[in-house]
Every structure is written in C-alpha cells, then in structure tokens.
C-alpha cells in the first residue's frame, strides 16, 4: 500500500484532460471575436501612430487647442466623478437603509443614464439648462450660466456617471454585517461616530472603484456633452469632440494621435481599478 514519496516519483506531468467538453470550441470563439472586433481595430490606432515621427506626434498632441481640451475634459470628468462619489454614497445609503414611498422607483431610476441614449440625455439637459430652459431660466437672473459653459459639461458628465458609484456601493452596503455597527454602539460610539468611523471606511473601496469608473466614462463621453457644451475651441471643446472634428477635416494622423493619448489614459484607469480591487481585497491588508 505504501508508495514512494512524491519527490521520489519521477516524471510527474499533469495530464490536462478536461472533463467538461467544449473548451477548445468556446475559447476559440471567444478569442476570434475578441481579436477581430476589439484587439485588431484598437491596434490599428497604435500602429498608425507608430508611423509618425516623435516631433509630429508631439505636435499633434500638445497644440494649445488640444491641451485646453485635455484640461477641460479631465477637469470636468474629475469634478463630475467627485460629485457622484459624494451623492452616490448618500443615494446608495438611502436606498439600502431607509424605507420610504417610491424607494423601488428611485432604485430603478438610477439605471436611467445606462439605459438612456446619450444623445437624448444631451438634448434634454441642454433644453433644461439653456437660458430659456426651466432650470437655466431660474439661474440666469443669478448670473449663473450652465449651458454652453464648462459647468454644462459637468452637468452632463454627472448625469452619465451617476449610476457607477451607487451600483458599486449598494451591494457592499447590503452585505455589511450589522454586527459591526452594533459593536460600535455597545462600545459607546454615537450613531454619527459609528457612521463616520465604521461604516464609511468599509464603503471606501467600493466608492473609489465607482469613482474611477465614472471618471473613465466621463473622459470618453461624447454624445451627452456635444449638445450642452457649445463646442467653442479653447473654451468648451472636449477631447473626443476634437477627435471627431479632426476626422471630419480628414486629419487622420491628428485624430489618431489624440486617440492614442486617450486610450493610454483609459487603459491606465482600467488597470488602476484592477489594482485598487486587488489591493483592497488583498490578504495582507486584511491580515493587519
């Protein structure tokens, strides 16, 4: 019955025989679709740019009009993601913890920005915030202009990014053990102390993830912004719009160079989300 120790047994290979069928077929299909639809076209942008000299590339991506568009795009996206992080946590909290009439409707409504085509959102927001619109008309006497200013872009991006934080925080909040809060209460913490020192830190990872997702979405957003921004070069022209403009002028090299910059930023953000998740859920962090 006794056999030699594993170390002594020569030549152990793992025989990869899979019990469930269809691995080759499904993996093949997946890779084929992925390559043809996503990877190959995306690589086209990088390869096209590789044909440019460094000076040409730098010229395309650092002209004053382009730099102004970066500043606006990232600034508005950051501000919108920050607003969503703040309000998103509150909305998620209210949806999970409080019973109130219409809770289910509000919960369903949060998905509206996912479901509503961006062009529709764009014209609706513009109609509302234009000086003649319902809300724009109210703000006009106060000297606040929303449509056709950076503030309008912020409004559109806040709308677009609204679901991200809510939908990442909500499940975490639902699964948060009530014992944590009860323990804090028995240790003499007031309710607000418990919220600030126990609950909010537990929601931080999800909030950061939602923030980054909203930021990434905001940076690339086009449809909802083009209507409300007014598209004035150097003032209210976002980077995706600039790409479209260059394309319409048949400046493929300029459009592609800008696209590469944006792709790098987007991939960095996507990678950042992955790192964030891994860091927050890493065993070392939980060991401490």
């Amino acid at each position, binding site marked *: *019955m*006794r*056999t030699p120790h594993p170390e002594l*047994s020569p030549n*152990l*290979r*793992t*025989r990869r025989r899979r*019990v469930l069928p269809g691995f080759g077929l499904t993996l093949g299909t997946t890779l084929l679709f992925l390559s043809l639809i996503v990877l190959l076209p995306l690589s086209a942008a990088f390869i096209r740019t590789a044909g440019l000299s460094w000076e040409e590339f730098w010229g395309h991506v650092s002209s004053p009009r382009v730099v102004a568009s970066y500043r606006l795009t990232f600034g508005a996206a950051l501000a919108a993601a920050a607003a969503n992080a703040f309000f998103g946590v509150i909305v998620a909290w209210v949806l999970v913890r409080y019973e109130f009439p219409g809770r289910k409707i509000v919960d369903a409504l949060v998905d509206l920005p996912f479901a509503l085509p961006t062009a529709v959102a764009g014209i609706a927001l513009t109609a509302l915030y234009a000086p003649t619109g319902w809300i724009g008309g109210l703000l006009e006497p106060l000297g606040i202009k929303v449509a056709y200013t950076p503030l309008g872009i912020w409004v559109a991006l806040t709308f677009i990014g609204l679901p991200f934080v809510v939908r990442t925080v909500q499940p975490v909040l639902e699964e948060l053990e009530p014992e944590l809060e009860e323990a804090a209460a028995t240790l003499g913490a007031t309710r607000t102390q418990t919220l600030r020192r126990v609950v909010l830190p537990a929601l931080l990872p999800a909030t950061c993830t939602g923030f980054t997702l909203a930021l990434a979405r905001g940076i690339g957003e086009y449809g909802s912004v083009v209507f409300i921004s007014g598209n004035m070069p150097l003032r209210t022209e976002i980077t995706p719009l600039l790409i479209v403009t260059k394309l319409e002028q048949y400046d493929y090299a300029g459009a592609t160079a800008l696209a590469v910059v944006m792709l790098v930023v987007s991939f960095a953000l996507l990678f950042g989300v992955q790192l964030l998740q891994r860091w927050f859920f890493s065993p070392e962090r939980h060991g401490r």
Partner: protein
Amino acid sequence: MSIEVRHAWKRFGTFTALAGVNLSVPSGRLTALLGPSGSGKTTLLRIIAGLESPDATSDPDSGKVLFHGEDVSNVPAGRRGVGFVFQHYALFRHLTVFENIAFGLSVRPRRDRPTTRQIADRVNELLDLIQLSGLGGRYPDQLSGGQRQRVALARALAVQPRVLLLDEPFGALDARVRKDLRRWLRTLHERLHVTTVFVTHDQEEALELADEVVVMNQARVEQVGPPQEVYDRPASPFVIEFLGNVNRLERGRTAAKSVLYVRPHDIDIRREFAGEHAVPARVLHVFSAGNYGRVSLSRGDTGDTIEAEVPRQQLRELNLRDGDRVNLVFRHVRLFPAEGFREEDLPSEPSASRDAGSGI
C-alpha cells in the same frame, strides 16, 4: 462489478491529493472512503467516476481505473455506467423531480431511448423506492434536504449504473435526518446489491454503514478492512486516533520508547489492588450524565490525563469522588513505536496487541 484503481497520483498546484493510491473494491459491497478533509478521498471518488483525471507518470499503468477487470481509464464519465451522487446533490433546479430522475434516460440517443411510457414507469418505480410518490411535480427548491438527497440517488439509479458513487452523501443534512437516511441507504443496498462507494469524514457513519472501510490520510490509504477489523486492529496511530476517542500514553519506563493507545471504554477502574500491570491514578472529575459515566483521571507516575468510560451502574457502585486514588486496568491496548519513527520502520503487522492485565 468490482472496481480497481492502480497507483493514482493527483496534484493540484503544490497540493498533493493522491500519492500513488491503490484501491480495490469488491463487487456488490458497500465501501466507505473515510478520512479527514484534504485526505484525497473525494478526488479518488471523482477519478473512479471519470470526473477527474489522474496525473500521468512514467509508469504506464499508473492511474488506471478498472471496472471488473476492464480498463475504463479512457472512457468518459457518461459512458462508464456510474451513478454519481454529488455532495450538494446538483439537482437540475429548472426541472421537476420527475424530470430530474428521467434525465439520464431521456438524453439517450433516440435508438437506445426507452419510450415515454417506459421512462414514466421507471421514474414512478423509483419515486416509490425513495418514498416520494406524489412529489414528482415539485421543483428541487421545494424539497427538504433529505428529500433532495433521495431524488439525487434516484436520478443516479435511473440509468441502472454498474457502480454507485456517493460524495459525502449525508454531509449537508442535520443529525436526525442523517440517521434515518443512513438506515434507509443500508436497506436499499441490501435490495439492489449494486457496488457502492461513498465518501465520508464521519467515522461513525463509515463503521455503521459500510461492509468495507478504506481509511485515507494525507493522500494515502492507511488501512483497508471490515469496520470491526479497522476499529479493533488499527494499523497506524492515525487510524486509531481518527476512529473515536482514545487515550494516548507514552510508555516511559522501557528503553525503547513507544506509544500506547487505550480507548476509554477499555479501561476498568478498581478501588482495590489490581495486579502489577495496573496503573495507579487519581480521580480528577466525574461526569455522570448519559448511559456511560466519564471519569477524568491523572496518572500517578507521569501525570498524564486519562479519560475512562464506565457503565452507569458500575460508576454508582464505585462511588468515586474527586481526588480518590484508584487503580486502572487496561483491557485492550495498541502499541506503536514512539515519535520519530519512520513509516518504513514499521513492521508489516505494525502493532502489538495484547491484553494487559487480563489475568486478573
């Protein structure tokens, strides 16, 4: 239908689940694979079923699975003629009980498939057998755990398997249901006589239910035998410790150190002198609830703590108090060489069993 597994290796990453395990299961018997979690028993069962493939080694014979002498190593799970009952049943949640049991028959190629009528008859027969007639229209999530377990069994039996394999069949059930099902499975086996292997970590379950017990530990088989033999003549310290409570005592007086095992119910407590083999001890505490009283004692010479089990009646006659001095007679002990022994050093019949103090 006998089952044989030859020299099976299986590793998952750095974890070794099976280290060259040989197994032979006699035809028509109920065999238990018993061991702690991680001992490789479930992996072995899945290899028999064809749900897992053993690692390849330089030895071409390694990892072979034979059913009645016929090599089925390259036969896929669906054609081996095994009925497999999963630990969490794996009932198809979108199908009714009836459809679940009929599944195996209804997926056969058209030429081998029984008629709808025949399938229905077979399913109803099985529903009778598992005492769930009338619940055929229910869905799995409308059943209790014990009922689901029986449906899973009926589903496996519907295809008339040559071999029935059960992975922790009672693991997910509560204690009372578990006892009932155990008895029911034993009766069922007596009626059907299909070669059955089940995996369990519960020694009581294995000893009570099986004709043959295979004790596994750390990817190896420790001992094979009928329940009585495995319990009375354990082949290794692991087996004796795994199969129920036991006192583990160092035998310090002899030069060659060894370890002595004695089960609590093999200890007699005497107030009077009980021969030179008897061990003096002091009563620490008496627990008298239950059919058996448990006495906790401190050994006079070494101070080791010893647990003894004494029938209620006898305990009353002894009238023990904490601190009383008594003599212990071990009716039955197992001896193993002490710590640091190597497996290779063990003799083929590794233990010396003797009846110490039986002369009294």
